[in-house]
Protein backbone atom coordinates (compact mmCIF):
# COMPACT_ATOMS: atom_id res chain seq x y z
CA UNK A 1 0.00 0.00 0.00
CA UNK A 2 2.75 2.39 1.00
CA UNK A 3 4.77 1.62 -2.12
CA UNK A 4 1.70 2.19 -4.33
CA UNK A 5 1.13 5.52 -2.61
CA UNK A 6 4.78 6.41 -3.10
CA UNK A 7 4.58 5.46 -6.77
CA UNK A 8 1.49 7.60 -7.18
CA UNK A 9 3.29 10.56 -5.54
CA UNK A 10 6.32 10.11 -7.80
CA UNK A 11 4.13 9.94 -10.91
CA UNK A 12 2.33 13.07 -9.82
CA UNK A 13 5.66 14.86 -9.37
CA UNK A 14 6.88 13.68 -12.79
CA UNK A 15 3.67 14.92 -14.43
CA UNK A 16 3.92 18.28 -12.65
CA UNK A 17 7.54 18.79 -13.73
CA UNK A 18 6.66 17.90 -17.34
CA UNK A 19 3.76 20.35 -17.43
CA UNK A 20 5.81 23.15 -15.85
CA UNK A 21 8.76 22.60 -18.20
CA UNK A 22 6.50 22.55 -21.25
CA UNK A 23 4.73 25.77 -20.27
CA UNK A 24 7.97 27.53 -19.32
CA UNK A 25 10.17 26.47 -22.22
CA UNK A 26 7.99 26.20 -25.31
CA UNK A 27 7.86 29.69 -26.87
CA UNK A 28 4.32 29.20 -28.19
CA UNK A 29 2.81 28.63 -24.72
CA UNK A 30 0.29 31.36 -23.82
CA UNK A 31 1.86 34.24 -21.79
CA UNK A 32 -1.05 34.12 -19.30
CA UNK A 33 -0.34 30.45 -18.59
CA UNK A 34 3.36 31.18 -18.20
CA UNK A 35 2.60 34.01 -15.77
CA UNK A 36 0.44 31.56 -13.82
CA UNK A 37 3.20 28.98 -13.33
CA UNK A 38 6.06 31.44 -12.84
CA UNK A 39 5.64 31.86 -9.08
CA UNK A 40 6.41 28.15 -8.81
CA UNK A 41 9.07 27.77 -11.53
CA UNK A 42 11.04 30.77 -10.25
CA UNK A 43 11.01 29.42 -6.72
CA UNK A 44 11.98 25.82 -7.45
CA UNK A 45 14.56 26.64 -10.13
CA UNK A 46 12.65 25.44 -13.20
CA UNK A 47 12.42 28.88 -14.83
CA UNK A 48 13.89 28.87 -18.33
CA UNK A 49 13.89 30.65 -21.66
CA UNK A 50 15.71 29.41 -24.76
CA UNK A 51 15.64 32.27 -27.25
CA UNK A 52 19.27 31.61 -28.11
CA UNK A 53 20.22 34.32 -30.66
CA UNK A 54 16.62 34.56 -31.85
CA UNK A 55 16.47 37.24 -32.99
CA UNK A 56 20.22 37.79 -33.35
CA UNK A 57 21.48 41.18 -32.11
CA UNK A 58 22.28 43.55 -34.96
CA UNK A 59 24.61 45.90 -33.18
CA UNK A 60 27.95 45.76 -31.36
CA UNK A 61 28.17 47.92 -28.28
CA UNK A 62 30.80 49.40 -25.98
CA UNK A 63 30.09 51.38 -22.84
CA UNK A 64 32.17 54.18 -21.40
CA UNK A 65 31.78 56.56 -18.50
CA UNK A 66 33.01 60.13 -17.99
CA UNK A 67 33.40 60.77 -14.30
CA UNK A 68 33.60 64.32 -12.86
CA UNK A 69 34.57 64.23 -9.18
CA UNK A 70 33.46 66.81 -6.61
CA UNK A 71 37.04 68.14 -6.44
CA UNK A 72 37.04 68.83 -10.19
CA UNK A 73 39.11 65.83 -11.25
CA UNK A 74 37.99 63.95 -14.38
CA UNK A 75 38.39 60.28 -15.22
CA UNK A 76 37.25 58.12 -18.08
CA UNK A 77 36.37 54.41 -17.91
CA UNK A 78 35.96 52.25 -21.02
CA UNK A 79 34.62 48.73 -21.43
CA UNK A 80 37.13 46.19 -22.77
CA UNK A 81 37.74 45.91 -26.50
CA UNK A 82 36.67 42.26 -26.60
CA UNK A 83 38.31 41.10 -29.86
CA UNK A 84 41.71 42.26 -28.57
CA UNK A 85 41.56 39.96 -25.55
CA UNK A 86 42.95 36.42 -25.53
CA UNK A 87 40.41 33.54 -25.33
CA UNK A 88 41.48 32.78 -21.74
CA UNK A 89 40.89 36.41 -20.71
CA UNK A 90 37.49 36.37 -22.36
CA UNK A 91 36.66 33.16 -20.53
CA UNK A 92 37.48 34.63 -17.13
CA UNK A 93 35.86 37.98 -18.01
CA UNK A 94 32.68 36.39 -19.30
CA UNK A 95 30.58 37.77 -16.43
CA UNK A 96 31.80 41.30 -17.17
CA UNK A 97 30.72 40.92 -20.76
CA UNK A 98 27.28 39.69 -19.62
CA UNK A 99 26.93 42.57 -17.16
CA UNK A 100 27.63 45.19 -19.83
CA UNK A 101 25.37 43.40 -22.29
CA UNK A 102 22.47 43.25 -19.83
CA UNK A 103 22.53 46.73 -18.31
CA UNK A 104 22.81 49.06 -21.28
CA UNK A 105 19.12 48.94 -22.19
CA UNK A 106 17.72 49.16 -18.66
CA UNK A 107 16.70 52.79 -19.05
CA UNK A 108 16.37 54.86 -15.90
CA UNK A 109 17.23 52.18 -13.37
CA UNK A 110 18.77 52.18 -9.87
CA UNK A 111 21.09 49.49 -11.24
CA UNK A 112 22.81 52.12 -13.42
CA UNK A 113 23.10 54.46 -10.41
CA UNK A 114 24.77 51.80 -8.27
CA UNK A 115 27.09 50.90 -11.14
CA UNK A 116 27.98 54.58 -11.61
CA UNK A 117 28.85 54.82 -7.90
CA UNK A 118 31.03 51.72 -8.22
CA UNK A 119 32.85 53.18 -11.24
CA UNK A 120 33.49 56.48 -9.43
CA UNK A 121 34.88 54.56 -6.43
CA UNK A 122 36.98 52.10 -8.40
CA UNK A 123 38.56 54.74 -10.66
CA UNK A 124 39.99 56.50 -7.56
CA UNK A 125 40.56 53.62 -5.14
CA UNK A 126 42.93 55.61 -2.92
CA UNK A 127 40.38 58.38 -2.22
CA UNK A 128 37.83 57.30 0.44
CA UNK A 129 34.20 58.01 -0.56
CA UNK A 130 35.39 59.38 -3.90
CA UNK A 131 31.91 58.81 -5.34
CA UNK A 132 30.30 61.44 -3.09
CA UNK A 133 29.21 64.41 -5.16
CA UNK A 134 30.57 62.92 -8.38
CA UNK A 135 28.74 63.07 -11.69
CA UNK A 136 28.95 60.04 -13.97
CA UNK A 137 27.93 60.26 -17.60
CA UNK A 138 27.32 56.80 -19.07
CA UNK A 139 27.70 56.66 -22.85
CA UNK A 140 27.06 53.85 -25.28
CA UNK A 141 29.05 53.56 -28.52
CA UNK A 142 27.32 51.46 -31.14
CA UNK A 143 28.41 49.76 -34.31
CA UNK A 144 25.31 48.63 -36.20
CA UNK A 145 25.82 45.51 -38.32
CA UNK A 146 24.77 46.36 -41.91
CA UNK A 147 21.66 44.48 -43.04
CA UNK A 148 22.44 41.12 -44.65
CA UNK A 149 20.44 42.24 -47.70
CA UNK A 150 23.03 44.98 -48.40
CA UNK A 151 25.79 43.66 -50.67
CA UNK A 152 28.75 43.29 -50.62
CA UNK A 153 29.18 41.90 -47.11
CA UNK A 154 32.05 43.16 -45.00
CA UNK A 155 34.12 40.27 -43.68
CA UNK A 156 33.23 39.02 -40.24
CA UNK A 157 36.94 39.37 -39.43
CA UNK A 158 36.76 43.15 -40.03
CA UNK A 159 36.73 45.20 -36.81
CA UNK A 160 33.37 46.77 -35.90
CA UNK A 161 33.06 50.50 -36.73
CA UNK A 162 31.62 52.42 -33.77
CA UNK A 163 29.87 55.32 -35.42
CA UNK A 164 27.01 56.16 -33.06
CA UNK A 165 27.27 57.51 -29.50
CA UNK A 166 24.35 58.03 -27.14
CA UNK A 167 24.28 59.21 -23.55
CA UNK A 168 22.46 56.54 -21.56
CA UNK A 169 22.35 58.33 -18.22
CA UNK A 170 23.87 61.16 -16.24
CA UNK A 171 24.09 60.03 -12.63
CA UNK A 172 24.58 62.74 -10.00
CA UNK A 173 25.73 60.84 -6.94
CA UNK A 174 24.76 62.15 -3.48
Amino acid at each position, binding site marked *: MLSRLRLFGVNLLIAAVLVLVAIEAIPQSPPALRALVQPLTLRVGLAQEWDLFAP*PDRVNTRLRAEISYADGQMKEWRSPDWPKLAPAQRFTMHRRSEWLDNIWNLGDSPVLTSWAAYLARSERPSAPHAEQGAEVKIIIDQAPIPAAQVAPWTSYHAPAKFTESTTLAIEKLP
Partner: protein
Amino acid sequence: MTNGGYNLVAAWRSLARGWHEFFHAPRDTRVCAIVRIAFAALVLVHWAVLYPDLELWYGENGVLPAAVAREDAGPLRWSLLWHLPETSATLQACFWIAVGNTVLLGVGLLPRLNAACVLVWLISFQNRNRFILDGEDATMRLLALYLMLMPCGASWSANSLLLRWWKGTQESQTERHVKPAWGLRLLQIQMAVIFLAAGLTKIGDDAWLDGTAMYYVARLDDYFGRLPTPAWLFDQPWSVAVATWSVVLGELLVPVCIWFRQTRRFALAAAVLFHLANEWTMHLFLFHWLMLVGWLSFLEPSDWQWLLRRERQERGDREQGDCSVCNLKS
Protein backbone atom coordinates in the same frame (compact mmCIF):
# COMPACT_ATOMS: atom_id res chain seq x y z
CA MET B 1 -20.35 2.23 -27.36
CA THR B 2 -19.11 -0.75 -25.40
CA ASN B 3 -16.49 -1.25 -28.03
CA GLY B 4 -15.51 2.43 -27.76
CA GLY B 5 -15.41 2.17 -23.98
CA TYR B 6 -13.27 -0.94 -24.18
CA ASN B 7 -10.83 0.81 -26.50
CA LEU B 8 -10.56 3.73 -24.14
CA VAL B 9 -9.75 1.47 -21.22
CA ALA B 10 -7.26 -0.48 -23.31
CA ALA B 11 -5.64 2.75 -24.50
CA TRP B 12 -5.41 4.04 -20.94
CA ARG B 13 -3.86 0.78 -19.73
CA SER B 14 -1.39 0.77 -22.56
CA LEU B 15 -0.50 4.41 -21.81
CA ALA B 16 -0.06 3.62 -18.12
CA ARG B 17 2.14 0.63 -18.99
CA GLY B 18 4.21 2.77 -21.37
CA TRP B 19 4.58 5.52 -18.75
CA HIS B 20 5.65 3.00 -16.13
CA GLU B 21 8.17 1.35 -18.42
CA PHE B 22 9.58 4.68 -19.54
CA PHE B 23 9.97 6.26 -16.11
CA HIS B 24 10.29 3.36 -13.69
CA ALA B 25 12.13 0.61 -15.55
CA PRO B 26 15.59 -0.06 -14.08
CA ARG B 27 18.38 1.90 -15.73
CA ASP B 28 22.15 1.87 -15.54
CA THR B 29 23.01 4.20 -12.66
CA ARG B 30 26.57 4.64 -13.97
CA VAL B 31 25.05 7.11 -16.45
CA CYS B 32 23.78 9.15 -13.48
CA ALA B 33 27.26 8.95 -11.97
CA ILE B 34 28.89 10.22 -15.18
CA VAL B 35 26.48 13.17 -15.27
CA ARG B 36 27.08 13.87 -11.56
CA ILE B 37 30.88 13.85 -11.78
CA ALA B 38 31.06 15.90 -14.99
CA PHE B 39 28.53 18.41 -13.66
CA ALA B 40 30.38 18.88 -10.36
CA ALA B 41 33.64 19.44 -12.25
CA LEU B 42 32.04 22.19 -14.37
CA VAL B 43 30.40 23.85 -11.37
CA LEU B 44 33.80 23.95 -9.68
CA VAL B 45 35.18 25.76 -12.74
CA HIS B 46 32.24 28.18 -12.45
CA TRP B 47 33.02 28.85 -8.77
CA ALA B 48 36.75 29.23 -9.51
CA VAL B 49 36.12 31.86 -12.19
CA LEU B 50 33.63 33.67 -9.94
CA TYR B 51 35.89 33.79 -6.89
CA PRO B 52 38.16 36.75 -7.80
CA ASP B 53 35.06 38.87 -8.55
CA LEU B 54 32.89 37.88 -5.57
CA GLU B 55 32.96 41.38 -4.05
CA LEU B 56 32.44 43.01 -7.44
CA TRP B 57 29.23 41.10 -8.21
CA TYR B 58 27.80 40.42 -4.75
CA GLY B 59 29.54 42.75 -2.29
CA GLU B 60 27.99 45.86 -0.78
CA ASN B 61 30.75 47.93 -2.39
CA GLY B 62 30.36 46.15 -5.70
CA VAL B 63 28.26 47.05 -8.73
CA LEU B 64 24.95 45.98 -7.20
CA PRO B 65 24.26 46.44 -3.47
CA ALA B 66 21.79 43.97 -1.96
CA ALA B 67 18.98 46.53 -1.59
CA VAL B 68 19.06 47.36 -5.33
CA ALA B 69 19.28 43.69 -6.30
CA ARG B 70 16.35 42.80 -4.07
CA GLU B 71 14.19 45.58 -5.46
CA ASP B 72 14.98 44.49 -9.01
CA ALA B 73 14.36 40.80 -8.31
CA GLY B 74 10.74 41.32 -7.30
CA PRO B 75 8.72 39.22 -4.87
CA LEU B 76 9.07 35.84 -6.60
CA ARG B 77 12.82 35.41 -6.64
CA TRP B 78 14.63 34.44 -3.47
CA SER B 79 18.20 34.33 -2.27
CA LEU B 80 19.69 33.04 0.97
CA LEU B 81 22.14 35.94 0.75
CA TRP B 82 19.32 38.41 1.45
CA HIS B 83 18.65 36.78 4.81
CA LEU B 84 22.25 36.83 5.99
CA PRO B 85 24.41 39.75 7.15
CA GLU B 86 25.64 41.74 4.17
CA THR B 87 29.31 41.40 5.02
CA SER B 88 32.34 40.21 3.14
CA ALA B 89 32.90 37.40 5.66
CA THR B 90 29.36 36.06 5.13
CA LEU B 91 29.82 36.16 1.37
CA GLN B 92 33.10 34.25 1.64
CA ALA B 93 31.54 31.70 4.00
CA CYS B 94 28.58 31.11 1.67
CA PHE B 95 30.92 30.76 -1.29
CA TRP B 96 33.14 28.16 0.40
CA ILE B 97 30.15 26.19 1.68
CA ALA B 98 28.84 26.11 -1.90
CA VAL B 99 32.26 24.87 -3.09
CA GLY B 100 32.20 22.22 -0.35
CA ASN B 101 28.75 21.02 -1.41
CA THR B 102 29.94 20.81 -5.01
CA VAL B 103 33.01 18.76 -4.06
CA LEU B 104 30.86 16.38 -1.99
CA LEU B 105 28.47 16.04 -4.92
CA GLY B 106 31.39 15.20 -7.18
CA VAL B 107 32.80 12.51 -4.91
CA GLY B 108 29.30 11.24 -4.24
CA LEU B 109 28.99 11.65 -0.50
CA LEU B 110 25.27 12.20 0.20
CA PRO B 111 25.07 13.31 -3.42
CA ARG B 112 21.33 14.02 -3.60
CA LEU B 113 21.44 16.18 -0.51
CA ASN B 114 24.50 17.98 -1.86
CA ALA B 115 22.81 18.42 -5.26
CA ALA B 116 19.95 20.11 -3.38
CA CYS B 117 22.44 22.35 -1.54
CA VAL B 118 24.22 23.23 -4.81
CA LEU B 119 20.82 24.10 -6.29
CA VAL B 120 20.03 26.39 -3.35
CA TRP B 121 23.42 28.14 -3.69
CA LEU B 122 23.10 28.49 -7.46
CA ILE B 123 19.64 30.06 -7.12
CA SER B 124 20.85 32.30 -4.27
CA PHE B 125 23.87 33.63 -6.15
CA GLN B 126 21.96 33.91 -9.44
CA ASN B 127 19.13 35.94 -7.91
CA ARG B 128 21.58 38.12 -5.98
CA ASN B 129 22.83 39.48 -9.32
CA ARG B 130 20.70 38.64 -12.36
CA PHE B 131 22.63 40.92 -14.70
CA ILE B 132 25.61 38.61 -15.10
CA LEU B 133 23.59 35.56 -16.12
CA ASP B 134 23.32 33.74 -19.40
CA GLY B 135 21.97 30.43 -20.74
CA GLU B 136 24.59 28.40 -18.89
CA ASP B 137 23.22 29.54 -15.53
CA ALA B 138 19.77 28.15 -16.30
CA THR B 139 21.34 24.92 -17.56
CA MET B 140 23.48 24.63 -14.41
CA ARG B 141 20.45 25.16 -12.18
CA LEU B 142 18.37 22.60 -14.07
CA LEU B 143 21.11 19.97 -14.00
CA ALA B 144 21.43 20.38 -10.22
CA LEU B 145 17.66 20.02 -9.87
CA TYR B 146 17.47 16.79 -11.89
CA LEU B 147 20.55 15.33 -10.18
CA MET B 148 18.67 15.80 -6.93
CA LEU B 149 15.88 13.63 -8.35
CA MET B 150 18.00 10.77 -9.71
CA PRO B 151 19.95 7.98 -7.99
CA CYS B 152 23.21 9.76 -8.72
CA GLY B 153 25.00 8.18 -5.77
CA ALA B 154 24.19 4.55 -6.61
CA SER B 155 27.36 4.03 -8.63
CA TRP B 156 30.93 5.32 -8.53
CA SER B 157 30.38 7.27 -5.35
CA ALA B 158 31.69 7.48 -1.79
CA ASN B 159 28.12 6.70 -0.75
CA SER B 160 27.99 3.38 -2.60
CA LEU B 161 31.46 2.41 -1.34
CA LEU B 162 30.52 3.16 2.26
CA LEU B 163 27.21 1.37 1.90
CA ARG B 164 28.82 -1.76 0.50
CA TRP B 165 31.43 -1.72 3.26
CA TRP B 166 28.74 -1.24 5.91
CA LYS B 167 26.44 -3.95 4.59
CA GLY B 168 29.29 -6.22 3.58
CA THR B 169 27.22 -7.57 0.69
CA GLN B 170 28.66 -8.78 -2.57
CA GLU B 171 26.15 -7.61 -5.15
CA SER B 172 26.78 -8.47 -8.77
CA GLN B 173 27.76 -5.69 -11.20
CA THR B 174 24.27 -5.78 -12.71
CA GLU B 175 22.49 -5.54 -9.36
CA ARG B 176 24.77 -2.76 -8.19
CA HIS B 177 24.40 -0.51 -11.21
CA VAL B 178 20.72 -0.91 -12.03
CA LYS B 179 17.90 1.06 -10.45
CA PRO B 180 14.77 2.93 -11.52
CA ALA B 181 15.88 6.44 -12.47
CA TRP B 182 12.93 8.65 -13.35
CA GLY B 183 15.04 11.73 -12.58
CA LEU B 184 17.39 10.71 -15.39
CA ARG B 185 14.39 10.43 -17.72
CA LEU B 186 13.30 13.94 -16.69
CA LEU B 187 16.77 15.26 -17.49
CA GLN B 188 16.61 13.59 -20.91
CA ILE B 189 13.23 15.22 -21.59
CA GLN B 190 14.60 18.57 -20.39
CA MET B 191 17.52 18.34 -22.81
CA ALA B 192 15.20 17.57 -25.71
CA VAL B 193 12.93 20.44 -24.66
CA ILE B 194 15.86 22.91 -24.61
CA PHE B 195 16.75 22.09 -28.22
CA LEU B 196 13.13 22.00 -29.34
CA ALA B 197 12.32 25.34 -27.66
CA ALA B 198 15.40 26.95 -29.23
CA GLY B 199 14.38 25.59 -32.64
CA LEU B 200 10.75 26.69 -32.28
CA THR B 201 11.86 30.20 -31.27
CA LYS B 202 14.10 30.36 -34.33
CA ILE B 203 11.39 29.38 -36.80
CA GLY B 204 9.46 32.42 -35.60
CA ASP B 205 12.31 34.74 -36.56
CA ASP B 206 12.86 36.16 -40.08
CA ALA B 207 16.66 36.04 -40.00
CA TRP B 208 16.67 32.32 -39.15
CA LEU B 209 14.06 31.59 -41.80
CA ASP B 210 15.72 33.53 -44.63
CA GLY B 211 19.12 32.02 -43.82
CA THR B 212 20.94 35.19 -42.73
CA ALA B 213 20.94 34.81 -38.92
CA MET B 214 24.48 33.40 -38.79
CA TYR B 215 25.69 36.48 -40.73
CA TYR B 216 24.64 38.64 -37.75
CA VAL B 217 25.80 36.18 -35.10
CA ALA B 218 29.26 35.93 -36.68
CA ARG B 219 29.62 39.71 -36.51
CA LEU B 220 28.83 40.06 -32.79
CA ASP B 221 32.33 40.74 -31.53
CA ASP B 222 31.63 40.08 -27.84
CA TYR B 223 30.61 36.48 -28.59
CA PHE B 224 32.10 35.38 -31.86
CA GLY B 225 35.65 34.63 -33.05
CA ARG B 226 37.04 32.33 -30.38
CA LEU B 227 39.32 30.14 -32.50
CA PRO B 228 40.29 30.49 -36.17
CA THR B 229 37.63 29.69 -38.76
CA PRO B 230 37.95 30.03 -42.54
CA ALA B 231 36.81 33.50 -43.71
CA TRP B 232 34.57 32.13 -46.48
CA LEU B 233 32.41 30.28 -43.97
CA PHE B 234 30.67 33.40 -42.71
CA ASP B 235 31.34 35.75 -45.63
CA GLN B 236 29.44 33.88 -48.37
CA PRO B 237 25.63 34.03 -48.46
CA TRP B 238 25.34 30.34 -49.43
CA SER B 239 27.57 29.06 -46.63
CA VAL B 240 25.87 31.36 -44.10
CA ALA B 241 22.47 30.06 -45.23
CA VAL B 242 23.67 26.44 -44.91
CA ALA B 243 25.02 27.16 -41.41
CA THR B 244 21.82 28.98 -40.37
CA TRP B 245 19.43 26.31 -41.58
CA SER B 246 21.64 23.52 -40.21
CA VAL B 247 21.29 25.03 -36.75
CA VAL B 248 17.48 25.23 -37.05
CA LEU B 249 17.24 21.74 -38.54
CA GLY B 250 19.50 20.28 -35.86
CA GLU B 251 17.56 21.93 -33.05
CA LEU B 252 14.27 20.57 -34.42
CA LEU B 253 15.41 17.07 -35.41
CA VAL B 254 17.75 16.07 -32.57
CA PRO B 255 15.00 16.23 -29.88
CA VAL B 256 12.87 13.86 -32.00
CA CYS B 257 15.52 11.46 -33.34
CA ILE B 258 17.17 11.04 -29.94
CA TRP B 259 14.26 8.85 -28.76
CA PHE B 260 14.43 6.17 -31.46
CA ARG B 261 16.85 3.27 -31.19
CA GLN B 262 17.75 3.48 -34.88
CA THR B 263 18.60 7.21 -34.82
CA ARG B 264 19.71 7.79 -31.21
CA ARG B 265 23.46 7.58 -31.85
CA PHE B 266 23.26 9.81 -34.92
CA ALA B 267 21.24 12.39 -32.97
CA LEU B 268 23.65 12.24 -30.06
CA ALA B 269 26.63 12.61 -32.42
CA ALA B 270 24.92 15.57 -34.12
CA ALA B 271 24.30 17.26 -30.76
CA VAL B 272 27.93 16.74 -29.70
CA LEU B 273 29.19 18.08 -33.04
CA PHE B 274 26.87 21.08 -32.76
CA HIS B 275 28.12 22.01 -29.29
CA LEU B 276 31.79 21.48 -30.13
CA ALA B 277 31.45 23.60 -33.28
CA ASN B 278 29.83 26.36 -31.23
CA GLU B 279 32.51 26.05 -28.57
CA TRP B 280 35.17 26.42 -31.27
CA THR B 281 33.70 29.61 -32.69
CA MET B 282 32.02 31.38 -29.78
CA HIS B 283 32.77 32.68 -26.29
CA LEU B 284 29.87 31.27 -24.31
CA PHE B 285 31.71 30.33 -21.11
CA LEU B 286 30.45 26.92 -19.90
CA PHE B 287 27.16 26.75 -21.78
CA HIS B 288 28.12 24.14 -24.35
CA TRP B 289 30.04 22.00 -21.86
CA LEU B 290 27.02 21.95 -19.55
CA MET B 291 24.79 21.01 -22.47
CA LEU B 292 27.16 18.16 -23.32
CA VAL B 293 26.89 16.96 -19.72
CA GLY B 294 23.12 17.01 -20.11
CA TRP B 295 23.31 14.97 -23.33
CA LEU B 296 25.41 12.38 -21.49
CA SER B 297 22.13 11.34 -19.86
CA PHE B 298 21.24 9.63 -23.16
CA LEU B 299 24.22 7.27 -22.98
CA GLU B 300 23.34 3.60 -22.80
CA PRO B 301 25.64 0.88 -21.46
CA SER B 302 25.68 -0.51 -24.99
CA ASP B 303 27.43 2.70 -26.12
CA TRP B 304 30.56 2.18 -24.15
CA GLN B 305 30.40 -1.60 -24.60
CA TRP B 306 30.24 -0.91 -28.30
CA LEU B 307 33.24 1.40 -27.99
CA LEU B 308 35.16 -1.16 -25.95
CA ARG B 309 34.24 -3.89 -28.41
CA ARG B 310 35.50 -1.79 -31.32
CA GLU B 311 38.74 -1.05 -29.52
CA ARG B 312 39.20 -4.71 -28.65
CA GLN B 313 38.46 -5.66 -32.24
CA GLU B 314 40.98 -3.14 -33.60
CA ARG B 315 43.58 -4.33 -31.13
CA GLY B 316 42.87 -7.90 -32.18
CA ASP B 317 43.21 -6.95 -35.86
CA ARG B 318 46.51 -5.20 -35.14
CA GLU B 319 47.88 -8.17 -33.26
CA GLN B 320 46.79 -10.48 -36.03
CA GLY B 321 48.46 -8.17 -38.56
CA ASP B 322 51.68 -8.17 -36.54
CA CYS B 323 51.58 -11.92 -36.35
CA SER B 324 51.20 -12.32 -40.06
CA VAL B 325 54.21 -10.03 -40.54
CA CYS B 326 56.15 -12.19 -38.05
CA ASN B 327 55.12 -15.30 -39.89
CA LEU B 328 56.23 -13.83 -43.19
CA LYS B 329 59.60 -12.88 -41.69
CA SER B 330 60.13 -16.26 -40.16
